[in-house]
């Protein structure tokens, strides 16, 4: 068991000039066999391993990662956390995740900096206003703490917003989730990694999974760049890289990989203490604790594995936000980057079993899966441990595409977040 982080460990290590901090996780060599292997050390993979070990007492498991842990979309996202989706199955899983975030720092003994600063989704057309009202009613039936607010209230919460009633897309109001907000993306990956490691999970970095080996209708193990690893249960959690991996087991998925970009400005004094999403014009904005404005928008249109997006998509996002927040027009941008996101037809994730025995997938989170990491890991671990979908995961199974039982969130999530 690891020593706990606390005010005392901080003081003790300060006395030692910070030379004696224990490593947060080990770097073990892979064993020849595990009870279960998780492919991909992003937030979802690490959370799955953590809950497998913590809730289901499976200790002989590994997480195999081709690069460094948290280096995929988990370390590239704009960290918006909210749960006010339209459909009941979505509300259940996103709210499970959001509520786990509330207590996650204590559970992991790692500060994930969950900041429920409020998420405001602007209504900039009559249609959008009505659509959000519908979501508001659906959410109220589900017991979520969310409400519609007036244009005046929007201006009070975010004074830098453009409230000119004569602009092209005037603010008519907003849909507001006061307990939504942001978190520290790296810390979520690191916290789950440290937690899983201390429960005995092997996290194997710089080890690429090349293919899945099958033994008839069952999985036999994985071929990796560090050799073959035998296992009876494989959970593939590799976001935009899921299609190419499961294809080696003869499986197809209803997924396309696109590039989603984000950028941050130079740091400035505090101007915005909530998250603002402007779906009609395709942009959203928040301010990090360092003072940078964190900017995001929609995906590039075409399939992409290069982790580099195109300029027109960024230009579109920035144009929209300058219109919404004229004060930011002179800001310089510091960094921009892209991540390869896994998009499904109904914009909802895929969680569950496959036609191959022992092969489980958790993917399709697309542009919005940071917010769901704790809930997704929780239900996916339960699904793998018991070889049947957790009730909250069940609606997200692959069979929904054959049954036409889609969970359509393309309206609620018109913009990436």
């Amino acid at each position, binding site marked *: 068991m690891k020593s706990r982080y606390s005010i005392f460990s901080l003081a003790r290590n300060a006395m030692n000039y910070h030379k004696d901090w224990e490593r947060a996780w080990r770097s073990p060599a892979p064993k020849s066999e595990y009870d279960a292997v998780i492919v991909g050390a992003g937030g979802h993979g690490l959370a799955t391993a953590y809950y497998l070990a913590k809730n289901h007492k499976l200790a002989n498991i590994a997480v195999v990662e081709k690069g460094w842990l948290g280096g995929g979309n988990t370390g590239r996202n704009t960290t918006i956390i909210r749960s006010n989706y339209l459909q009941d199955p979505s509300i259940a899983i996103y709210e499970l995740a959001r509520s786990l975030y509330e207590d996650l720092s204590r559970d992991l003994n790692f500060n994930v900096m969950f900041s429920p600063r409020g998420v405001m989704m602007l209504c900039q057309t009559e249609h959008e206003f009505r659509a959000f009202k519908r979501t508001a009613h659906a959410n109220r039936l589900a017991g979520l703490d969310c409400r519609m607010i007036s244009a005046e209230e929007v201006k009070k919460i975010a004074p830098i917003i453009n409230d000119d009633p004569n602009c092209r897309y005037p603010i008519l109001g907003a849909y507001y989730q006061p307990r939504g907000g942001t978190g520290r993306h790296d810390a979520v990956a690191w916290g789950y990694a440290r937690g899983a490691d201390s429960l005995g999970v092997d996290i194997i970095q710089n080890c690429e999974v090349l293919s899945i080996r099958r033994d008839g209708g069952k999985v036999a193990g994985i071929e990796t760049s560090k050799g073959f690893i035998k296992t009876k249960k494989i959970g593939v959690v590799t976001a935009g*890289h899921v*299609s*190419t991996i499961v*294809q080696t087991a003869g499986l*197809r*998925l*209803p*997924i*396309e*990989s696109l590039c989603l970009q984000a950028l941050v400005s130079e740091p400035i004094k505090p101007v915005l203490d909530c998250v603002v999403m402007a779906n009609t014009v395709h942009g959203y904005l928040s301010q990090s604790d360092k003072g940078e404005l964190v900017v995001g928008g929609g995906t590039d*249109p*075409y*399939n*992409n*594995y*290069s982790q*580099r997006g*195109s*300029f*027109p998509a960024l230009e579109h996002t920035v144009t929209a936000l300058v219109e919404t927040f004229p004060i930011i027009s002179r800001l310089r941008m510091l960094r921009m980057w892209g991540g390869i996101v896994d998009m*499904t*037809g109904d914009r909802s994730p895929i969680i569950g079993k496959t036609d191959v025995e022992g092969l489980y997938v958790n993917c399709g989170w697309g542009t919005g899966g940071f917010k769901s990491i704790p809930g997704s890991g929780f239900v996916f671990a339960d699904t793998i441990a018991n070889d049947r979908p957790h009730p909250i995961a069940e609606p997200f199974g692959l069979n929904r*595409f*054959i*049954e036409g039982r889609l969970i359509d969130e393309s309206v609620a999530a018109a913009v990436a977040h």
Partner: protein
Amino acid sequence: MLIVHCPVCGAEGDETDFHYGGEAHIRRPATQDPTTVSDAAQRDYLFMRRNPKGLHFERWRCDRGCGKWFHAVRDTVTMDFKATYGITELPPRELMEAASGEWAAFFKDKLDAAKPSRKGKSS
């Protein structure tokens, strides 16, 4: 930024002059005989997608030129266009041969059917 070439009118422009139309060579099964279409075939048509890391065969529309749809072969890692070809045509033979994974499986019988002398139907 992608530079795209239209094989119909010859226009060249950046990606904002064109519209991406997703995976190419998808056939609507119900067009032949709706009564025989299985749920799985309908799912494949509506939702399953070839999502290769490497050569992809896709549709584009010449938005600000002639307005016509056409096909393209593009590498999803390097972003290079390898060829563009007509909306009713198959890709150049050497690109069908270079395809991997699900696309290789898709083109296999087309390559077997086409005699070597009919190669290069590219525009």
